[in-house]
């Protein structure tokens, strides 16, 4: 075609483009299709743009009219595209409203678990750290010296009968109690000090549902000036109230351990029956929980601490027993079974939140 474009032809063309674009937009199913339609009609090389570009060669008398028509069409297509996009989105939302299920369980990455002893030990460590105690550790393969001798339990002391010991040599043994860390801690840290030491202990006995040859204790030791029995009761009561998340009632009664004087057994009022008496507490209303006592002057001396200046108290918490109480585990053998059916149940949560 040469010469000036005919005004009528252009109107005709615009009208065709209008119909064509409107139909295509109505049939479009996606934003991408609509974007292609926009390109086809409205881009630099688009068909509506081509008409606008050709206006220069249109006779001036009809130029404004054609220009206006072309701009209207441009705007109309633009709006139609946006409207259609909005419709498509709306349809998608409606479809999702119908089909989207937010209640399916999430896909899970493999989750591991901590041993319940780790969880409860950590909880206790946190409580004691909060009370200004240092957490220390000591060897499991201990010497007679720290496990017995320095704890005022010389060879042939009848109290050695209380603990069936695994002997490795005349000197080496598998520690029977975390108390073995007492003198080590005093030697290392001096007085005053306040430490706890959780760890594995061993007694040579037959295994059944309530006996293990391998178990965990948590030993505590506080040495300072003028430490009294009243202080011991306070710390025990505070700590146990934290552990059990309730205001526990404690009582002390005499207990014999060669490394403390006086020595106590600390009982707590049974939390299950509130002291009324139930099978758990053997109908006594009390549960024996923490052997403890005032550190024997000889033990302080072994630790290089002057008993004239310092006194202190020590306690030995049965960590394994506490774990069984907290989680309602009735068979102690579960703990060393390595059986994930049991052990993976504890997750990695902090016992505080359980």
């Amino acid at each position, binding site marked *: 075609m040469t010469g000036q474009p005919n005004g009528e032809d252009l109107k005709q063309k615009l009208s065709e483009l209008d119909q064509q674009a409107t139909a295509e937009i109505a049939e479009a199913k996606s934003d991408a299709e609509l974007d292609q339609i926009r390109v086809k009609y409205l881009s630099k090389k688009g068909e509506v743009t081509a008409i606008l570009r050709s206006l220069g060669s249109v006779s001036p008398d009809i130029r404004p009219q054609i220009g206006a028509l072309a701009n209207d069409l441009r705007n109309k297509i633009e709006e139609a595209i946006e409207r259609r996009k909005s419709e498509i989105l709306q349809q998608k939302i409606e479809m999702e409203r119908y089909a989207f299920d937010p209640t399916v369980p999430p896909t899970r*990455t*493999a*989750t*591991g678990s*901590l041993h319940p002893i*780790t969880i409860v030990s*950590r909880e206790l*460590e946190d409580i004691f*750290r909060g009370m200004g*105690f*240092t*957490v220390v550790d000591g*060897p*499991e*393969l*201990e*010497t007679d*010296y*720290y496990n017995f001798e320095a704890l005022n339990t010389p*060879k*042939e002391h*009848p109290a050695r009968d209380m603990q069936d010991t695994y*002997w*490795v040599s005349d*000197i*080496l043994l*598998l520690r029977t109690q975390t108390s073995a860390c007492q003198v080590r801690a005093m030697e290392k840290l001096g007085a*005053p000090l306040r430490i706890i030491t959780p760890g*594995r202990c061993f007694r040579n*006995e037959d295994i059944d549902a309530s006996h293990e*040859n391998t178990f965990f204790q948590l030993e505590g030791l506080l040495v*300072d000036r003028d*430490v*009294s*029995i*009243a*202080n011991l*009761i*306070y*710390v025990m*009561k*505070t700590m146990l109230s934290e552990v059990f998340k309730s205001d526990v009632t404690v*009582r*002390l*009664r*005499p207990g*014999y351990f060669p490394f403390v*004087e*006086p*020595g106590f*057994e600390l009982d707590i009022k049974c939390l299950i029956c509130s002291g009324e008496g139930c099978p758990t507490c053997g109908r006594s209303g009390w549960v024996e929980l923490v052997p403890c006592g*005032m550190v*024997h002057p000889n033990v302080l001396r072994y630790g290089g601490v002057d008993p004239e200046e310092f*006194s202190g108290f020590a306690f030995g918490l049965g960590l394994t027993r506490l774990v069984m109480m907290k989680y309602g585990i009735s068979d102690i053998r579960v703990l*060393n*079974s*390595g*059986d*994930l059916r049991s052990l993976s149940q504890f997750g*990695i949560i902090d016992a505080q939140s359980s």
Partner: protein
Amino acid sequence: MKLSLNWLRDHVDIDDKTAEQLPELLTMSTAEVESVEHLGRDIRNVVAGKVVSLSPHPTSSKLSVIQVDIGSEVVQSVCGAPNVRVGMMIPFAPCASSLPDVECVRAAEIDGVASNGIACSQRELGIGDAHEGVFELTDECKPGDSITDVLKLRDTVLEIDNKSLTHRPDLWGHYGFAREIAALTGRPLRPLEMSELEGLMSADVVVPVAVDDPEKCYRYCALGIEGVDTRPSPGWLQTRLAYVGMRPINFIVDLTNYIMLELGQPMHAFDSNMIQAIRVMTFGQVKAAGYSGSTFTTLDGVEREMPDTALMICNHYEPVAIAGVMGGENSEVEPSTTAILLESATFDPVSVRRTATALGLRTEACMRFEKSLDTNMALIATRRFLYLTRQVIPTATVYSGLADAEPKPTRPISLSIDSEYVSRYAGTEIPPDRIESILTSLGFTLKRKDANGRSATKVCWDVEVPTYRATKDVTLPVDLIEEVTRVYGYGNIEPKSKAVALSPIHQDEHIELHYRIKQMLSASFGMSEIHTYSWYDKDWNREIDHKDDSVLTIANPGISKYDTLRRHLVPNLLAAAARNEGYFDEFRLFEIGSVYHPAPKDAKTAALHDEQAVRRGDALRIEDTHVCCIVHWKGRSEKQEDGAFDILKQAAWAVCEQMRNTTADFEVMDEQTAPEASLSWVHPVKRCLVSSSGIKLGYITVINPRLLDRFVQGANMAIMELNLSAFADVPMAKPSFAEPPRYPEVSLDFSLLVDLSMRYRALSEVLDGFSHDLLRSISYVDTYTGAGLPQGKKSVTIAVTIGSDDHTLSSQEIDGFSNAFISWLADRGISLR
């Protein structure tokens, strides 16, 4: 130990209300009462009966028919007891009466003869095991008397936890507990009834005593008594013994036991015919004196190999008893015995304990001697014995007066305390009068001292500790605190907080480190923590072909296959993995725990001279903390295998990165230099050593395929074991800060064709040699070994980051860098893919 309430009541008044409170009272202030048993309550209407006639049973030769006078009537009964005879006084349970095991005795017909009651044995009355014959009553009684009264069958027995008596020799008898109860209830303790000392001296010493080892024998009292016999004990005495768990035998033997249970002082009676002169010496001394043989036969009929250190009681140089443990068969009281030599002695507790342990013979006597007895009790017990003997056999007389050797007498101890000290230690104000009354009631003697610059509240005392408490238990002022506070009542001490100086609390790094690693392995790597035993199961180790060269063993393991302490965590974790295999397709396990081995020889010899190192055990053993992880999955594909290996490398990397802000190094494990390579579970190829900052930590391996099929079906495992004690020495890298790049950096990927056998570590070392102004870093992306590569080659893709501090790079600069890098690579024989 068992306590009879009737027995305690001989020495202190205990009303019914106190009796009810007694278990609580003793538990809270003295020793734990483990159980309370009410005895004799289920015996009703059983009476003393006299056998008035006896005839054989018409059909059964083992039975007889007896007529028994029970006061109100004469009753016929069929009786199987061989010892029944006319005139005998017996316990008889007529119809409608009750026995512990028979709720209601009924009339019966036995082989056609009417039987209207039971002639009872001791067992039927609940006072012992004797059941061979009917129990003959020797106590004063008449037909129809209630048997409960005659035999004192109604009693309450408290069982005390022996462990809480370990330090209290005085509480190993009823009298000591009576003293406690007197102190706790404020009632007087009755003085012990006993013969006067003069009575014991009424005859010359016929049997002399010589102590040849005065270190092991603190005191030896011997008294000869004649005119006695081995009749059965009175019923009430038999009841008491039976109720506290001691089998009645005959009056002489029973009385020695009775006094031991009353005073805590073991005694022994020899047949007088066998003893002319007592010598107390060790078995070694006996042998030196010419005794041939190395054994001794105790009165239980067992011939025992004797250690030379054992202390023996000898007649001249002939052993007749093991001191403090058991008498000999050669001198025991026989049914024909009419005179005895009574021993009441105090022996060295350690010596008795050693001998008893060596012989495996833990007798009631030895349990008491090893608690450190008071030598004064030896004489008191002798006087008490003579007194009680004469209560039963008034004609008993002393034929050999008291021979008493006392090389090491127990002496009272004197201690000084003051009321402020007591209150400060207790943490509560205890009035001086109360302190005084408590200690006095327990047998301590207090003398007030004038305190210098005396205050209104402070009272000072000299306290004399009675000898029965002074052998070991009460030797320090702090021991008196226990006496005062336990009677004062621990419940009366108010809890008090403690004010302390504010100072930083330093925490032990190891425990924190172990916990954080546990957290990471479980939370980020999906591993489950387990605990396994500290020793191997040798059967299992055989199954997995594992044997360590140098291990520590338990001397007394209980079960012998558990005698070896673990050097590696892997074997026990593999066992746990094998157990879990049946339940889970995929799982990951870990344990953080100790492993043990002997200290190396050279370190050992050097350290043996260092007393501290021996005391600490450092000269003898090494105990390290290890972490072991096992990844288990179903399937055997190469990809899974490499994936699992990679997970463990990630874990090792994360440990180094998160705990020490540093990296892990993975090196090829060389057979020649790495002992780990020979462990049975280590793969011949898929394995590596792990180290950080030049410190060797451990290794990662896919399980050896030769081992795998033995216990795992269709699954596979990868293993890591790291030494966390070594890791503790890896230094913490300081976090460093660099400004973020001001101009955008560009990352370029290059795929390098290298020999299949070239390890990345070697390639990385080559790349380290490249330098360029724009180079910022080079990192590994991946390795491709699939199709489309030249034979024997692989393609390693690396990402090279470049940038500039002062401008944005132009495309010419980027191209220039690429060209320079590529030609540098080409010079080193590395082409691009």
